[in-house]
């Protein structure tokens, strides 16, 4: 029985509205700032919250680079967006592929050293990227992978969390399904491709979102591994634009870049959301 008390409903709506405001307001300000000129942002205090008229110009400069009102050059963000996108996609797809296979090995096969391998993977969960960053850098640079996509993605591509998630999911697949497939004549890899992977699609979708955003937001590692401007991901680009000290910052361009950097992950979440819901509604038996 849900109590119907109008006062509480109003209160809960208020709290939710407040929450949305708190979260969305900074994004709104960023968007507004990206539609104004640099001049307007600096001279008008506090900044006007109405949309300005400079949107197209600002975004054009942000994406393709060029001269701004102050005569400073702005590097094109379009190439950085592409680097980020390729990195994030490679990391997400790579992680999922590797974890699916390793979870499959752990659940369906018995091999010597299985426990040991499992615990080793578990231990790596306790080691964040930062802890192992010096040796990883040394290896990557010795292998000549600096300033390459490989250098940006390979050290980040193994995932213990994804392996665990898939392992837990595979353990819920009934044994009889494996036996039926065996009687039908499906070998292990055939079973993996035809039965296990299709059944795991909802987990894959969920993990894809998480890993894509993880890959997109990588800052420390790309900072170390890239010196070439063309190989910098967009998060680095934003930071670079804000040069402190004497130089003038083109805040409108910076804000525009921030908005552009937020769009792809948001798009991925929205797209995948439809997949989750579809997967959740079709309750598998």
């Amino acid at each position, binding site marked *: 029985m849900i109590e119907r008390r109008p006062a509480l409903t109003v209160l809960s709506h208020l709290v939710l509205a407040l929450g949305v405001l708190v979260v969305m307001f900074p994004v709104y300000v960023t968007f507004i700032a990206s539609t104004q000129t640099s001049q307007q942002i600096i001279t008008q205090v506090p900044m006007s919250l109405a949309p300005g008229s400079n949107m197209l110009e600002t975004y054009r400069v942000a994406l393709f680079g060029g001269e701004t009102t102050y005569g400073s050059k702005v590097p094109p963000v379009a190439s950085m967006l592409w680097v980020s996108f390729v990195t994030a996609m490679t990391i997400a797809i790579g992680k999922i592929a590797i974890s699916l296979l390793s979870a499959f090995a752990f659940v369906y096969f018995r091999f010597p050293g299985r426990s040991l391998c499992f615990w080793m993977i578990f231990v790596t969960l306790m080691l964040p990227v930062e802890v192992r960053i010096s040796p990883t850098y040394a290896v990557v640079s010795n292998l000549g992978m600096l300033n390459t996509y490989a250098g940006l993605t390979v050290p980040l591509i193994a995932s213990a969390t994804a392996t665990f998630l898939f392992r837990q999911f595979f353990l819920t697949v*009934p044994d*009889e399904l494996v036996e*039926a497939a*065996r*009687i039908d*004549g*499906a070998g292990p890899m055939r079973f993996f491709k*035809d039965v296990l992977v299709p*059944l795991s699609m909802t987990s894959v979708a969920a993990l894809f979102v998480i890993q894509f955003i993880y890959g997109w937001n990588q800052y420390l590692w790309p900072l170390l591994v890239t010196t070439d401007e063309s190989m910098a991901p967009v998060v680095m680009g934003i930071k670079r634009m804000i040069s402190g000290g004497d130089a003038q910052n083109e805040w409108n361009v910076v804000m525009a870049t921030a908005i552009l950097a937020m769009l792809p992950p948001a798009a991925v979440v929205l797209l995948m959301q439809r997949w989750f819901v579809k997967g959740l509604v079709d309750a598998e*038996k």
Partner: protein
Amino acid sequence: MAAVELRSVKKNFGKVAVIHGVSTVIDKGEFVVIVGPSGCGKSTLLRMVAGLEEISEGEVVIGGRVVNGLEPKDRDIAMVFQNYALYPHMRVYDNMAYGLRIRGLSKDDIDRRVREAAKILELDALLDRKPRQLSGGQRQRVAMGRAIVRHPQVFLFDEPLSNLDAKLRVQMRLELQKLHRRLGVTSLYVTHDQVEAMTLGQRIIVMNAGRAEQIGTPAEVYHRPATTFVASFIGSPPMNLLRGRVSADGTQFRTDSGSINLRQARAARAGRELLLGLRPEALDIGGTQFAAEIEMIESLGADHLIHARLGMQSLVARTADEIKLALGASLALGFSADAEHWFDPQTTQRLEI
């Protein structure tokens, strides 16, 4: 050439012997039921025939070939599981076609076989549905369809009706019988339900604790049970087994509380401690051989079950007549000599005496 032969098949899990050596010959087209209580090893035996369990000792022969080392797909068998085991993400058509696709049959062959099986099982309208859109009975038919399309030498059924409700179970039992009559494929069927065993099986293997206690036709198993286990497992309510000693002259059977008059005196029985088995329907109300105290009367409509007590031992009688006796009253009972089953109390084996 027999369709399936089990030669002293044994199964050990580590040091524990789970199946102690089962041997039998199953002819082509025969429907054999393996029946027994939970944990008796019947599923394990079936899985050894299927190739899902290693055979510890002995041989399984299918179609004249020893299949001990072969993978399930090479044994020319098909299996129907208790939980159907349908691929949830595939349509009914694809569920049935999957095995054939892996075998490499042509698209036309596959289509022909699938549609043929669908017609037999009345699944034509359901071919495009996914398993979750089907009822339990429909899913079980799809599982059978998947087995039929393979045109195997042997069908293996692992308690396929256990997940269905009682009414559906009766319906599916009849459908299975019709199917067997139509297709004539050798079938090995595992169940814990003795009714299914009696109605479906042309021969029954009664298993207990890893041993085949009796292998015979339903009539043999019912009318001449080989051990006390078989006697009490087959038939509902179970056979009454009374402990006692036959008198020296062989005319009486003395229990702990009284005497039962026997119609025939046999020297082989005289003076021995034995178990007397009497089926509930074999006890005649109003007979003169012994009396028991009525404890409870269960009315099933067409029949009545009278639970009575003979000293420390309880027994059940079944009669179609209305019983006007009250609880606690004395029930006079009799039985013919043909209805007597004698067992050795130590070995539990049937004695022909």
